[in-house]
């Protein structure tokens, strides 16, 4: 890399504005979201009635069971329940 003057450094600082905070927070919550998903899948494997209820109406069942649907990737959960 060549040396840069102050103007070029300023341009390069400008080139990396912050990502929207909500996007960053969602990505930071990934491990927790994954853990929640694993818990639900494990419970569904152990409890067939729960699994059937999830397949019949995923969002309503999650809400009824006290899970926050917005904190879980519903598409991924559907995929894992179907596999």
């Amino acid at each position: 890399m060549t040396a840069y003057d102050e103007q070029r450094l300023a341009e390069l600082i400008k080139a990396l504005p912050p990502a929207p905070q909500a996007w960053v927070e969602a990505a930071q919550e990934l491990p927790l979201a994954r853990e929640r998903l694993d818990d639900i899948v494990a419970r569904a494997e152990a409890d067939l009635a729960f699994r059937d209820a999830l397949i019949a109406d995923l969002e309503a069942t999650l809400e009824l069971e006290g899970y926050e649907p917005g904190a879980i990737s519903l598409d991924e959960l559907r995929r894992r329940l179907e596999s």
Partner: protein
Amino acid sequence: MQLASLPDAQLVARCRGGDEDAWRELVARFSRYVFAICSQAFRLRAEDSEEVFQEVFARTYQHLARLRDDEAIRPWIGQLTRRLCIDHIRSSSREEIVDPDTLPGGVDEAMTTLDDAFAVREAMAELTENCREILDRFFARDESYQTIGAALEIPSGTIASRISRCLARLREIFEGRNPAPGPSS
């Protein structure tokens, strides 16, 4: 050592060990880079950028255990983002999405600029917190002197001279980290 000052390889190792704070730091460290590739190099619309952004970090998390070189996490994330942007464009039938081959200056040039920008950002870590904040707020966040002065509790009339001093200091740090090639013998 604070997480923010951990080298990439050590941060990756901590993430792999299940350290959630390390993962948060990893996302924070690379979020601007991923965002800029989506929105500047590929000029994706906001909703498309968000989709790629989340997918990049989901795949990074999934692949942590299989990374071949922890030190190379930044180029790995860069290539992953690039590939996912291209996949996204190809899988979309929307005409208004830009074809990467027709971007002015090209994606490769934009990626090179963003790699340089990331190196500058790393050099900024060696500045004082005050300098780092001033430069980031003025250039990256596009804040006014007045806003910066109020946030940092410094007279707004001194911001311009502080920016100038901080940029000069950043140049010293940056040149120390990236010495210009000397004359060939």
